[in-house]
């Protein structure tokens, strides 16, 4: 079965659409922290759906045996499939529950220059939500946050991933 609407849209249109979304949120919520929260929430809702699209189209169908493998799949298959970039997975914690994704380029922020009045804004915070939502659906409870962002003057863009637990299925409710 072929995918519907495989036709590409202009990446500029995508980038500008995301930009106006963030701009509108800034108008609506004013505080940078609040905008960060809203972007994360939106991303989470996207991620919980996107995971099935990912699973339906990725060739890898077997379960990852450890978080290291998961992070690799996220970077090499997930980011590639939806954003066309492949971040580097690095900076692992000793127990392999925390790592960083280094983004050499960020398609969401191509035209963005953050004014100094918004130094607390995580412009691409949607990505953190998407990752958290998608991983939640495969039973991994994580925290995801921007540790560094070139938009804020940092030398690199770094998303940090932390695995808290791998959840188990709840038993169906009994009739009694």
């Amino acid at each position: 079965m072929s995918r519907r609407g495989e036709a590409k849209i202009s990446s500029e249109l995508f980038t500008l659409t995301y930009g106006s979304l963030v701009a509108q949120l800034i108008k609506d919520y004013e505080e940078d922290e609040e905008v960060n929260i809203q972007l994360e929430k939106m991303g989470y809702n996207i991620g919980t759906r996107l995971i099935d699209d990912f699973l339906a189209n990725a060739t890898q169908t077997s379960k990852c045996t450890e978080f290291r493998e998961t992070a690799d799949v996220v970077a090499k298959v997930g980011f590639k499939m939806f954003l066309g970039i492949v971040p580097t997975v690095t900076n692992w914690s000793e127990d392999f529950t925390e790592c960083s994704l280094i983004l050499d380029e960020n398609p969401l922020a191509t035209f963005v220059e953050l004014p100094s009045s918004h130094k607390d804004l995580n412009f691409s915070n949607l990505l953190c939500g998407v990752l958290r939502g998608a991983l939640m659906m495969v039973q991994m409870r994580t925290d995801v946050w921007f540790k560094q962002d070139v938009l804020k003057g940092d030398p690199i863009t770094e998303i940090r991933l932390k695995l808290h637990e791998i959840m188990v299925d709840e038993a169906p409710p009994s009739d009694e």
Partner: protein
Amino acid sequence: EMIFNFYLFDRKGSCLHFQEWKRMARSQSHSDDANAKLMFGMLYSLKDFVKRISPVPVKGGFHHYTTGSYKLNYLETLSGMKLVLTTDVNVGDTQDDLRNLHKIYVEYALKNPCYVFGDVITSDLFKEKIDQYTRGLHYFRAK
């Protein structure tokens, strides 16, 4: 050869979709809703059983079981979506067909922004696509 029915469950056990093409016996419990609950409970228990009893590390869970009168074909995605297609006993491997039914769910239910995640799917287009795909399977041929 033929196909009897199709169930789609989410991880929590909500039946998002049920469609029936043929029924040749009256089941013990009368409502579709009660049957869906029974089905999900059975899938959960069977999955657990398969895991417990397995002499080798479990990878994909179970794919089907066959009784004297019907075959139950099963696919569970890593996201916990459960797809069930009950067919005639002579039907072969259906994993790829179940994967395609999952794709239809992604394209015609999940990607619709008006669809509330976890709700029963009411989209006619979705039902039509499921129906079309299932009828197109070479082992459909219901009389």
